[in-house]
């Protein structure tokens, strides 16, 4: 029986993935500090985008409030480290647990009371805004003034997750690689099959024995937990957190723009999308500042989103894959025929 039908394409995918990883590692060694800090953000949003992508692209559940989970992760790391001097590693685990639990609770409540689809998405916004306002008024976590990490000494300390920009770049590269690999492994496991079935048709999936209620909670919980890990590292990279920036709608948009632009439900989409969107955002923001037009970056975001949805509705990555597949094995010259003159 031809069971291992996709081994050849599989091998190519692994090689391509490893190749990208090696190139990105080289970027970390060779680039200047501007490129490195920009790419650190790209990689972190790749990871967070991947977590969001798992939820919508494979699980079929839309969240527009992922800043809730990002923020919970960031605050877990910040509070434990700044207030108690506890290692961010533990902060990350705590953040993952809290966000995973909050995500599961939100999903349970929502689906228990039949709040689904777009209404669930609205609920995620409400929950994220609620958390942002709560954290803004909570003095223990710094309120509106936020919290600041100790200024980095520049010395690398893996146990305390401290180091220079290059160190954080490799941390971000590590989690991004784990994110891509994790998504790939999950989508190949039975979870990937039943989640995609649930995404495409809830009723049909249930008729095939898929416990969709349970699986929705699981996928949202995993997505929330991993977004929190990204948020915790983002907080360390930025050196400070404020409720408006780390828990605001802006983060939710930044998280989802990568996978939407890059390709929903794909392993590489969030990376390609973040790579396109975040540098654009930064550049436009800088141009806007110099021209005295604040918010130019948001306009650019809007335009790129419209363009992608219009021209490449599947996202950039699937378009690249199609293009690659359409290349014939041997390059052939297309000789254009002279146009026939109509009589």
């Amino acid at each position, binding site marked *: 029986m031809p069971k291992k039908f996709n081994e050849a394409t599989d091998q190519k995918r692994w090689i391509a993935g490893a190749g990208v990883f090696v190139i990105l590692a080289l970027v970390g060694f060779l680039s200047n500090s501007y490129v490195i800090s920009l790419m650190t953000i790209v990689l972190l949003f790749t990871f967070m985008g991947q977590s969001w992508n798992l939820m919508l692209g494979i699980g079929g559940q839309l969240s527009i409030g992922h800043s809730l989970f990002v923020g919970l992760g960031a605050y877990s790391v910040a509070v434990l480290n700044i207030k108690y001097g506890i290692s961010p590693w533990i902060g990350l685990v705590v953040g993952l647990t809290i966000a995973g639990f909050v995500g599961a609770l939100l999903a349970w409540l929502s689906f228990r009371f039949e709040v689904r689809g777009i209404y669930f998405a609205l609920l995620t916004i409400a929950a994220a805004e609620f958390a942002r306002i709560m954290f803004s008024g909570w003095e223990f976590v710094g309120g509106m003034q936020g919290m600041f990490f100790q200024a980095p000494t520049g010395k690398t300390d893996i146990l305390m997750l401290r180091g220079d920009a290059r160190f954080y770049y490799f941390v971000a590269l590590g989690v991004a690689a784990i994110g891509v690999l994790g998504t790939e492994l999950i989508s190949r496991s*039975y979870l990937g*099959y039943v989640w*995609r079935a649930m995404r495409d*048709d809830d009723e049909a999936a249930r*008729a095939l024995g*898929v416990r969709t209620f349970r699986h929705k909670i699981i996928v949202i919980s995993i997505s929330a937990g991993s977004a929190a890990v990204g948020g915790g590292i983002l907080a360390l990279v930025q050196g400070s957190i404020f409720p408006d920036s780390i828990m605001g709608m802006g983060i939710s948009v930044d998280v989802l723009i990568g996978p939407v632009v890059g390709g929903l439900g794909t392993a590489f989409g969030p990376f390609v999308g973040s790579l396109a969107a975040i540098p654009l955002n930064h550049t436009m923001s800088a141009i806007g500042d110099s021209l005295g037009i604040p918010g130019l970056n948001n306009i650019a975001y809007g335009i790129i989103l419209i363009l992608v949805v219009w021209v490449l509705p599947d996202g950039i990555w699937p378009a690249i894959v199609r293009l690659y597949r359409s290349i014939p094995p041997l390059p052939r010259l297309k000789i254009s025929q002279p146009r026939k003159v109509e009589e």
Partner: protein
Amino acid sequence: MTNLLEVRNLTRSFGGLIAVNDVSFSLRGGRITALIGPNGAGKTTCFNLVAGALRTTSGQVFFEGRAIENRRPEDVCRMGIARTFQIVRPMRDMTVLENAMVGAFSWTTSVNDARDIAYDSLESVGLANKAHAKTDQLTLPDRKMLETAKALSTRPKLLLLDEVMAGLRPTEAAGVVRVLQKLTENGLTILLVEHVMRIVMEVASTVVVLHHGAKIAEGSPADVVADSKVLESYLGAGFHA
């Protein structure tokens, strides 16, 4: 032979409309039973009540002696009752094989096991050679058979088929009939909701006739066709057995 499924006084009303009214029947193992009746007779509602897709207003459904009415559809499936839908529902951007794998995850978490059983399911409905095709490349009869294969992957004891032969040409329907007969030879019990009378007469060992939500006849195809109430309400004057 014991009764695999027993439906007792099943009733379901939607507001003032009684879609299924006090229907009782039972299925014997290893046979094909057909549920027939004119449009709006309550066949699909009856079907959905058994499969757990709808809650009952009253009445019981016993499967292997256990009460199963008002259980969730996924739990009913895991107990051994698989169903297909009248409108085919293949999962997009999954191959035929992957579609057929989903059902297997109700009893295994191993992707390899699922792939094996999915192949077996596809083979038993004659789709194994199209395992790696995308579902949108399939013809209508193939899609209908894929629905059956998806259901088979859950390893059911009872298969509920909702109009698998609707819209098929006679030769295509004959192919489906052969598949169904083969499945029952391997011990599967089938409950068929069907419109195509000629085929029902050919494959079913028992026919249950519904009309306006109530059962008006039950028996062998020959008996049912001879029943004056059935002739009157369903088959009309134009039908000659």
